[in-house]
């Protein structure tokens, strides 16, 4: 599976990328919204893992642009973010219904194993073959 990981922190991006690659996926890392759009344009991702707190353009701005392209409207986006649940709940409706965010995970409490499980077990991705699970 090809994953677009939008993560501004270099060290976190490196560990997440390594864990996902060890689980058998290919990963493209983007630190900003602009680079993420370019990366998706180069190769269509099967899933996007998105930090909402980005430099310059926020994750929400990225999503507005990302969803404006018809080819990318069905790609599942998972919010994997530093934004705590209490603050996220304010934008939950917008992100879910208008911007197609299929799941929210609070990053500081999400282990690498869980990140791999989120990718492997997401219902929208269940028909994609060759998934290696990490226990």
């Amino acid at each position, binding site marked *: 599976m090809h994953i677009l990981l939008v993560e501004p922190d270099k060290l976190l991006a490196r560990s*997440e990328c390594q864990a996902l690659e060890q689980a058998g996926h290919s990963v493209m890392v983007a630190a900003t919204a602009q680079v993420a759009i370019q990366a998706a344009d180069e190769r269509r991702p099967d899933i996007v893992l998105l930090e909402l707190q980005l430099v310059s353009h926020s994750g929400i701005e990225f999503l507005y642009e990302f969803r404006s392209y018809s080819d990318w409207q069905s790609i599942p986006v998972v919010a994997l973010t530093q934004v705590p649940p209490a603050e996220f709940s304010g934008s939950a409706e917008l992100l879910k219904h208008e911007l197609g965010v299929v799941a929210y995970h609070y990053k500081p*409490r999400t282990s*690498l194993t869980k990140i791999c499980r989120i990718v492997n077990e997401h219902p929208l991705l269940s028909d994609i073959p060759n998934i290696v699970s990490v226990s």
Partner: protein
Amino acid sequence: MRRPSQQQPILSEQVLLSIAEQLKTPFLQISHRAELMALAERHHTDQSNPVLADLHEIQTTSDTAIRLLDNYLFGARLALEEQYQLQLEPVSVSSVLYDTGQQLDAMAKLYGVELELSLNGKFGPVMANRSGLQSALVSLGYTLIEALPSLEARHSRLQLAAHRCRYGIVAGLYSDAEQLTVEALRQGRKLQGHARQPLSMLSPGSGAGVFVADAILQAMDSELKVSRHHRLYGLGAVLRPNQQIQLV
């Protein structure tokens, strides 16, 4: 360079909140690196490899630090917004205590503290804010788990328990450490913010978890009290039962 006046301290509460927020990132980086190394080790060696235990310990400690920071941020924001009240809802005490136990379990094991869940009797729902109550009990738990080994209590055992009292239902954490007294808590509240070790009879550190729990419980119209559970000493939240749901 302009020197800040007395009214504008160099490190305002807001700056401290930002630091706490930012500190979560390096802890998460440590946790992720440890987990990644453990995953790689597991492929090459057997489960008894001591490196695996060390890596697990590093990960648990980092994850604990993140939870502590989250709870601190939650409590501090509530304390700063004095008028702020958490929304109350019917909450099952048993389920909150169970989830609290789950969150404290890894840290308790690291400190060699035996964690027990004691839920004798049926408790109807209480009026509380579920995530608030849980954050308060988890914060309290961290402080007590850290403190118990240094108190040289007879048994390093911490019990998560609930019981009825004349004001409602008390949900809290109990041990055989006699230092958990009304006087220690009263003194601690008075010294908090002024002394390095406000709960000197109880905690070798700042005992922040107790004050975080205090702030969160106040925001849900509850309070932290010293209480006894059977023969144990502890701190608990006094919660009002939800009469309406009990009638149904």
